[in-house]
């Protein structure tokens, strides 16, 4: 499949760099149909050209990429943000499960992002996801978007009992008994599910501290869903310190 691709970037050289890289890593799948460097231009082009894939810079000449998302009427495309440094935006992307790439762009990361798109079905960019993103940009997030093949689940942070990883997938265990598996590594969530509420007790386990039933000095945690998880040796000291703080 060939993706009609739109690049929204206000610096000409960065635009060119991205084009060249796209050609390098996925030339046969990508057809660049245009560039835009301002909010106004970008909005018009998306609505007119109806792209399959949009690379969106955050800082544009006359505003931000988020403004573009609010103004467009066409929304059936895959979206990948590009950013040099906007730290708060990056956290918001993670919570909202929106893809992003850091500039200068790494060709390997670019390839992974394109490959991920390929395994997803053609998908509507849900308004809800955009709203989530907007909310998460303006305040401390209290919800997390979990993207799966069939749907985007929005879960409250306090609903998450624990996360377990297997390879590059992460399974979320929720208070209502649901299990949701997403195709992102646990590392991705460790950066946003932070102590003192969340704690990564083990290479494979991130837990909600409030869902602990008991823990033993030997290094086992009993959770309220009756699961028993190990605490890795390297994490023990930090964990007991955290628990003392909690008590």
């Amino acid at each position, binding site marked *: 499949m060939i993706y009609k691709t739109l690049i929204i970037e206000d610096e000409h*050289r960065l635009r060119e*760099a991205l084009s060249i890289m796209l050609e390098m890593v996925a030339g046969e799948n990508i057809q660049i149909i245009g560039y835009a460097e301002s909010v106004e231009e970008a909005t018009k082009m998306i609505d007119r050209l109806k792209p399959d894939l949009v690379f969106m810079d955050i800082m544009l000449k*006359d505003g931000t990429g988020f403004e573009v998302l609010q103004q467009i009427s066409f929304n059936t495309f895959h979206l990948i943000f590009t950013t040099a*440094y906007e730290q708060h935006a990056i956290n918001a992307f993670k919570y909202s499960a929106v893809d992003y790439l850091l500039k200068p*762009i790494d060709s390997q990361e670019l390839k992974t992002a394109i490959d991920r798109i390929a395994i997803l079905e053609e998908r509507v960019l849900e308004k809800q996801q955009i709203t989530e993103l907007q909310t998460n940009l303006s305040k401390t997030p209290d919800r997390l978007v979990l993207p799966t093949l069939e749907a985007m689940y929005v879960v409250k942070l306090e609903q998450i009992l624990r996360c377990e990883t297997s390879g590059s997938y992460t399974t979320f265990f929720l208070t209502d008994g649901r299990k949701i598996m997403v195709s992102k590594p646990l590392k991705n969530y460790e950066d946003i599910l932070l102590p003192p509420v969340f704690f990564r007790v083990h290479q494979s386990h991130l837990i909600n501290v409030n869902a602990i039933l008991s823990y033993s000095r030997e290094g086992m945690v009993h959770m309220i869903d009756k699961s028993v998880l190990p605490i890795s040796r390297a994490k023990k000291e930090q964990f007991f310190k955290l628990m003392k703080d909690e008590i």
Partner: protein
Amino acid sequence: MPTIFTIRSKQARKKYLIFLILLSLLFVSPLQAQSISSVEKIVSLGYAKRFSDTTGSLKIQHQALNLAIKNKSKDDEVICYAYLALTQRRLLHLKEFLHYADTAYYLSKNVQNVRAKAHAAAAMGSLKSYIEDKPQALNYLLKAYQLFSKINAHDQCAKIASDISYLFSPASPPKVEKYAREAMIHAAKSGDPESNLYARLAFGSFLTDKLETGGVVDWEVAVKFFKETVALAEKNADKIISKSNIGIAYINLADLYTKDPKSIDEKAFLMNLEKATTIAKRYNVKIIYRSAIGLQGYYFTQKGDYAKAELLFIEGINYQKKLPYTDNYLLATFYSCLKEVSVKRKDFKAYYAYDTLYTKYNQLKYNEATQSKLQNAEARYESSKKAERIKQLELENELQQKNKLLGYAIAGVLLIGLIFMFRSYYYRQRYYQNREDFLKQEQANSELKVQLMEKETIENLSARLSLERRLLRSQMDPHFIFNALGNIQSMILQKDTIPAVSYLNKFAKLTRQVLEQSRKETISLEEEINTLKNYIELQQLRLNNGFDYVIECDGTIETDILIPPLLIQPFIENAVEHGLKPQENNVRGLIEIYFKEDETKRNLICTIKDNGIGLAASRKLKINDTHQSLSTTITDERLTKMQKENPNAGFTVKEREPETDGQGCIVILNIPILS
């Protein structure tokens, strides 16, 4: 000391003892004014007045007590009661003495202050020794000694140990020796000539005691020790506040000569008394003078030279009568000596004359109230002295009744001696305690100062580092860095090798300049301009050469003037990101930077003009740029700090006049020129 002599049971020395007892009066120490605590200062001042103005003395002490109660300071209260107790002792008001000492001691059980506790224990010790309850007196004094040891008050320890040593004599010679030696050790540790003299007097007393059983060698040791003491005292006379103690040393030495196992060295004896008299005259210590006379009189009585003895006693009486106050105890004692002389001479006529006077002074002093209050002491005195007294009374049958009264006199004098001794030791105790506290306070203060200075240095350093770090961040915007790297990446991908290398070089140079300059206090205008050029050129490359720039200096300006580094760059960044970048493509951007000095030559005026979209339009875009606000805040902070030295430092940002000046934004920076 008085205890030693009174208990030494040689009837023949009885009269002699009276004069040695008087020495205890010399322990009076003029240290009243050394207090630190205000309440204690008041009470001690009051206490000091107890001889001259008894009513006033009590009044002041009660005022101090009221103040202590008002301040709710239990420590001061205890100390006030202790002083009042001693004052009542001086007034021979046993009932009140008992009351105050008891109160002080009772209250001291509930205070933590070691010093107050020590005072209370010492007051009780004084009370117990007043009623001659020696075991209890020792008990309390040892307690006071222990408390003072605890706070390492060596001066006080030296004196209390001395007093304890006196109290152990003659019952326990090892203890006498132990405490006299400890007194010497404490005195040495304190390094204070006065304490040292006090301790040496105690140790000398121990050596003198030892003569009872010792031989020639002991006597020689004692004489040597006292000679040293006298020499030391003379040497440090300036530093010894209680000059009377020097006199006591001489009198003790003189006394020692009368105990020469071979034969008395009359010349040495009289010479030392003469020295004591000299000191008495020099420092106006009347009591030494009287004692010297008394001892000489007694010596001549013993020797059989009654005429000379009588003359001396009369001289003593006349001297005493010249004084502004009447010391009935002393007069009674002198007359009693004269009576003895007349008995020895079998001159009963003279005896009756002296006896009449003796009775008169004795009666004056011992009214019935006093006598009843002395019953306790009398009983104790009687029990220990009865045997010898009966023996004497048998010999002097006719004088028996009168001699009983003499006993009272001895007891009274003894009591005064004890009062003085304790008064002296309380004052010293307090003085050294105060001094110790003061030194400790001083030491604590200086330690605190050092800590504060260290803390300030660390705080300054961390503040400086933090500013440096923030300054660096304000200059090297991560967004700018990564975009620059992205640009370089792009040029490489497009195989534009030469521009890529040039861009990389500029970027490396800017990084180096910012890293170096952010650590400096000042840089030259030239350096600042170079950094700006480099920065602007990188921005030009980023924006595809979408704007031009001009940097101009006023003709008169010298580019080696020194200014704080990196103040201007954030405003250029502002102009590019928020002024020029959102601009329509058909307008070519221009940034103009112009430097000139102000009239005072103390400030550099930097004007930055851009032809961008202007402030109002920029605000509408609402681009949330935390970096930009951070760098402007830091510049503002830095310039505000400089306002202390240079009130004009600061900056203004305004819209250009669209009619006259065109569109855009104008920033005027007022930068202090540093030297």
